[in-house]
Every structure is written in C-alpha cells, then in structure tokens.
C-alpha cells in the first residue's frame, strides 16, 4: 500500500516534470511576446529591453526552464508578470473556490447522471429510456454559457431562489455547479446506463431477487455499487476538466476560481500564471486519478493496489 503510493507519487513527479517542460516549451515558441504586454503601448524600446532583462526573458530557453524548475522545487511558482504578485499566492487564493465548485459540480453530476443512467437502464427500451438518452445528448451538446445564463435568468432573476452571482454561501454555488453538472452529466448517464445493463444480467442480482429483497434495495445496494466502478475513473478525468476549464461558468456566475485567472493569463501571455495553473491542475489531475484508483478497492474489493 505505502509502496504503491510512493511509486505512484514518483510517477506523478515524472508526469509533472513532463507537463511543465512541454508547457514551458510551447509558451516559449508561442508567437506572442509577454514583455510587450507588460510594457504596454507607450513603452519605448529602452523600457521594453529593460523589462525583458529584469524578467530574465533574454536568457536561453534551457536556462529559463532550469530557473523555473529550481523555483518549483522550492514551491515557488514565480511572480506574475502583470499582477506583480506571487503566483502561488494568486492560485492559493482561488483554489478554495475552484475546489468547492468542482466538488459540488461532481456531486450534482453524479446525482443527475447516475439518476438518468439508472432509470434508463431499468426501463431499457421504453419511452423513459429514449427520453433520458435524448436528454443526455442535449446536455452534452448544449453550450455552457447558454445553459448558465438560462439557469441564472430563470432561478435567480425571475424566481429569485438563488443569488444572481457571487461567492460565499452554499446557495451561491448551486447554479454554477448545476451548470457544470448539466453539461457534463450526459457522459455519466450513458456510462451508467450501459454499466447497469450489464450488471442487471448478472447471477448475483438474480440471487438478490431470490432472497426476496425489495426492488429498491436490489437496485441501490446490489446493482449500483457494482455498476459504479467505471464511473469512478470518469471522476478522475472530470477533475482535470474542471480544474482549468470552468472558465465560462466562472465568468457567468462571477465565481472567483482558477479558470478566470488562467483565462486572462493566457490572453495576456502572463507565463508564470499559465505555468502555475498548468502545474497545479496537473497535480490535481494526477491526485484525482490517484484518488480514483485508491477509492476503487473500496468500491470493488477484488481490486488490489499493486
């Protein structure tokens, strides 16, 4: 177990190294000059050069990367070019919001997606099934921005059930999480459906019925726990998507997450922030996958961590 963890962590470090190197390289060859962004429109060439020197951007690529890495090892993610603040601090200040949104979104996603998938599997081939699968397609095809605004307009502006935007209380988080969940739940619904259909044909489900258990118990205690394994791996993937990708939802609902930070940084080539977000979200993805793998044995005791 500990050996497993340690080995996975070593792998994770290698992955992070790879991710940071590729990102750094891509940003290096990107046809956009961060210094021009910092210097602004009135800067004289002199000012531009002095800023470039100050940031060490006049040095060769490998030197720059090495400097970045040595900082990274000490937990230093560098300083934002434009905000002139420590990237670690900037990210840390937004991490709680991102994690909170992510957690709630995944919970909603599971409730909606699994609910739909289970119902569709139980009523397979009936109208319920077709409607639900159609809905899952609509959910996957819907642009987040529009879904978010529709929810906001309906539940916040018209009905006033939730605050229009902002961050703080649970009710602030409901609509943004719901937006993410709705657009992501289609995958879960489809996965769960096919997984449930397989489980519904198994011998142990027949045994459960032969024991005279109620339908609810058969579904919830026997079928679902067995069908849920592939879903757990998907949560790991989802963490990655939510870490840097909730930009649209964050901006619709004024959510102070990492997405907005990353977005603005990308547009203005604030390389330390882009790097920081990349590294942090890679860590989150790796940890998320690790967590998914660690949870798996609890869900399915046949799985051994090795």
């Amino acid at each position, binding site marked *: 177990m500990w050996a497993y963890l340690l080995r996975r962590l070593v792998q994770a470090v290698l992955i992070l190294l790879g991710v940071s190197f590729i990102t750094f390289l891509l940003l290096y060859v990107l046809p956009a000059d961060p210094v021009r962004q910092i210097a602004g429109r009135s800067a004289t060439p002199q000012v531009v050069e002095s800023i470039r020197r100050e940031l060490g951007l006049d040095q060769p690529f490998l030197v720059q990367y090495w400097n970045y890495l040595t900082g990274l090892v000490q937990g230093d993610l560098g300083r934002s070019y434009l905000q002139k603040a420590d990237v670690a601090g900037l990210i840390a200040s937004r991490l709680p919001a991102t994690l909170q949104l992510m957690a709630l979104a995944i919970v909603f996603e599971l409730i909606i997606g699994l609910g739909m998938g289970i119902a569709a599997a139980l009523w397979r081939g009936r109208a319920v099934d077709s409607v639900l699968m159609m809905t899952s397609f609509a959910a996957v095809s819907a642009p987040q921005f529009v879904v978010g605004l529709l929810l906001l307009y309906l539940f916040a502006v018209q009905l006033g059930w939730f605050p229009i935007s902002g961050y703080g209380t649970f009710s602030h988080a409901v609509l943004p999480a719901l937006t993410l969940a709705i657009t992501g739940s289609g995958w879960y619904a489809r996965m769960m459906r096919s997984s449930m259909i397989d489980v519904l044909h198994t011998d142990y489900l027949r045994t459960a019925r032969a024991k005279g258990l109620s339908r609810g118990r058969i579904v919830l205690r026997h079928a679902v726990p067995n069908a849920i394994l592939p879903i757990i791996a998907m949560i790991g993937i989802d963490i990655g998507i939510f870490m840097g990708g909730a930009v649209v939802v964050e*901006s619709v609902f004024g959510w102070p997450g990492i997405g907005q930070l990353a977005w603005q940084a990308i547009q*203005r080539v604030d390389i330390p922030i882009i790097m920081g977000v990349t590294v942090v979200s890679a860590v989150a993805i790796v940890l998320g996958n690790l967590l998914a793998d660690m949870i798996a044995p609890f869900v399915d005791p046949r799985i051994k961590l090795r």
Partner: protein
Amino acid sequence: QEEQLDPNAKAGGSIVITYKDDVATLDPAIGYDWQNWSMIKSVFDGLMDYAPGTTDLRPGLAESYEISDDLLTYTFKLRPGVKFHNGREMTAEDVKYSFNRMLLPATQSPGAGFFGSIKGADKMADGSATELEGLTVEGPQTVRFELSRPDATFLHVLALNFASVVPKEAVEAAGGDFGHQPVGTGAYKLGEWLPGQRVVFQKNPDYWRAGLPYLDQITFEIGQEPVVALLRLQNGEVDVPGDGIPPAKFQEVMSDPDQAARVVEGGQLHTGYITMNVTQAPFDKVEVRRAVNMAINKDRVVQMINNRAVPANQPLPPSMPGYSQGYAGYPHDVEGAKKLLAEAGYPDGFTTELYAMNTDPNPRIAQAIQQDLKAIGINAEIRALAQANVIEAGGAGNAQMVWSGGMGWIADFPDPSNFYGPILGCAGAGEGGWNWSKYCNKDLDAAAQAADAMARPDQAEARLKAWSAVFEGVMEDAPWAPVFNEQRFTMKSPRMGGADALYTDPVSIPINYDYVYVTDVQ
C-alpha cells in the same frame, strides 16, 4: 483655487461597480489597464490633475508651479498638510522617491517612457543611474524638475498615474506586493481585496480636498460577465456596470424609456482605425492606402455596432484638442477607390490579411470591413487572434492590415501628441513598436517635435494648429484608415447622482469616483 462642491450632493452611502476582468494591480507605477487606471486615480494623487469631467489640467498635490522662461525648469510647491492613508504627511522627498522608483528598471513600469524629457531619465532606463538627475528637492514642500528639452506635454505627463506619489515605507513594508496593498493620498483607501471577487474602497476621511469624496464606500465586483452585470443592475444590485452596456442588451435598454434615461452618452478619446503596413507591397503605394480609406462604409460599421460610435476621418477624436474641425477626409467612394487601385497597378485587386482581436465586436467589424474591401477587389483574409498575438504580429511588421479595436488608442492624456509618437511617429516604427503601419515620415516627425517644443502658454493655440497640420499630413499619406470614434454609454442606477460629465469623464473611466454621490442617503 477653491473646490467647487455640488450643492445637491449628500455625503455617505456606498455603490457597487462590476468588472469582467480581474484588477491586476493598484500599484500606480505599474497599473495600465483601463479599469485599474481610474481606480488608481482615486487612491493616489500626482502633482497635476484634471478638473472632473473635463480635460482641463489643474494642480493636484502641487499647490502651484512655476515654469522657467527657457521652459526647461518646473518648480512645484507642494500642498501642505496632505496625509498618506497611513497618517504620515507627504513631503517633497516622497515625490523624489516615487519618481526614482517608477523609473528604476527593476520596477518594470510601463510608463517610464513618458518621462523621457526629464534630464537623466535615459540614464535611469539603461541602469546607469539610480537617481533621477533632473529632479531635486528644494525644500520640504518644493521640488524642481529639469528637462532636457522643452516639452509642452510635461504637465499632462505629470498627471499620469505613473507620476503618483507613494510613501516609501509602505512600499517597502509591502515587500514587492505594493500593488495589492496600496497606500496613497487619494480620496479612497483600500478596504478589502478578495482576489477574483471584489475590491472595496473606503472613504479617506482625511482627504485633502475638503468635503470629498461623497461616498463612504465603493465595491468593485470582479469577474462579472457584462450581460449578468446588466441583469443585476436591472435587479437593483449594481450601480454602474463597469464594462458598459453589452451589445446583446443595448436594444432592450434603449427601447425602455426608464432605462434609457439613465444612460449617459459622451465622447471618448478613442479612435478605431486600420493600419496598413507601408513598407510592404501593395500598401507601399499611397493610392492603395487611399483606396482603402475610400472603400470603407463607416456608416454601416457604425450601424452594426448599434450606432455607438461616430464615423472618423482623421486620427484624432473630436473631443481631443487639435481635432481638425473642417477636415473632410476621404469620402466613401467605391468607384473612386477602384480607380485608385487601378492607378496603383492593381486593377484586379489583391489578397491580403486583416488582423483583429478576437473579442466581440472586433471580429464582426473586421468582417464588415472585409466585405467593403471585397467590393473594390481586395480580398482580405481575417486573422482573429488573441490580443497578445495581434500585438506581436503588428509590432513585428508581419501584419499587412490590423484593425485596432480592443487594443486601440484611448489617450493616456488629452493632448494630440499622445496620438502621434508611438503609433505614427518614426520612434514606434521599429521592430516591436506600436506603430503597426511602420510609417515614418521624417518631415512630419520634425514638425511634431517642433510643436511639442511650443510649451509656452501663449503658444497653445499655435501648437494645436501645428498638430492639426501634422495629422492632416498623416492623412495625406494615409497609413491608417480611421473608422470611427467610440461613444461612451454609461448606465447608472436610479440613485446615482452627480453631473452627467462625471459619468463620461474623459480620464476617469467609467466614472469619476471622487465626485459622484448617491441620492438615497439621509
């Protein structure tokens, strides 16, 4: 001079303003985004300032100033009893510290280039000096600037945020994070700052302009989609949407008399234009450039952005001193344009690229222009890229045509010279410069320099004339095709008070925080 207080104004109350983009920093030496520009103005003061809602210079932290006859020495007498937010009194040493700090390369101030006329500024830039030679402290309340050449814009430059006075001890205490823990002399001090969420300004009770500001508190809510911000305004949660009225909501707002009444329209020191790279064929031919100027149907472009602009025919916006009132510009004339193209040797037109920033409405405007160009046979492929990539392409001279929208010129200070040097003059035409036309007319450059040397107050009129001539000269060569000057439409909540001019303040966008008030306080 005495401060004119609004007799209707009531003190107290707080307002909410929204922005989409994050506030990067409130460090006056660094902040150069259009949204933190006005915020910094309210936290910090410089020696010079503008009367609210106008482009009229007035002394700020300086009580008075004197200009020597050779126009090379400016002596400022500081206002006594001005206190920083930390309670310490501001002195001449602080002015000196602030300028040194801003000009040191380590600070990475994007504004350093504005102060090139001060003696020794170049030595600061290349790192060979750490103290500004041309700035001396004459006494506790007196500073003297020495210039290396006469500079008519110098007082304007001193009104820029970069020239704000900061307290040394606070900068040092912040340990490199002054931008998030600002301490100034301004009307507001920083209350709370939750990154990505909100910035709260508290009234500075010791503000040196007696009776100001009126408001107790301003909350800037960050990361708000403009459409959502407007919904919240309509819901009574927001007082001013900082990003304006989003196009998708404009019709709705303007067709409701109640809401339309709360929209204040005003001019803006902005010009949207197309640059044409004069160093490359086919735009090395002036006929081609003129043809482009004549091809564009500016009225249609303006209509497409909901008439929120006025067609432009010269680089300067109408509200800028030096604007040529009577100048006719190039008429919209498709046949004429075709003829010019044929004269230039392109009777069948040609294919080129039009760069534009990728945020709405810029790609749309680019497409409208594209259609106009097609009408005279020019096939312009659009490159809608992120801001950074457009700037890169324009600076490197790779872009044959660039639509300036989104990155375009909103003046740093209300003086025509600001519209010339970096974007039309030879200085900006080098590799990486912001003169994306790479246009360099030595004669006009000389004329511009001469105009800026006319720094005596009695020369002001003549100087503006000279500038008008320079810009007419530019239009003769047509490195740009000016398209429109954006109008500002600021919307406010019903309780917002204060003259309309405060809501279209040319230097403090979207509103002048120091002078607005709310009507619903007792």
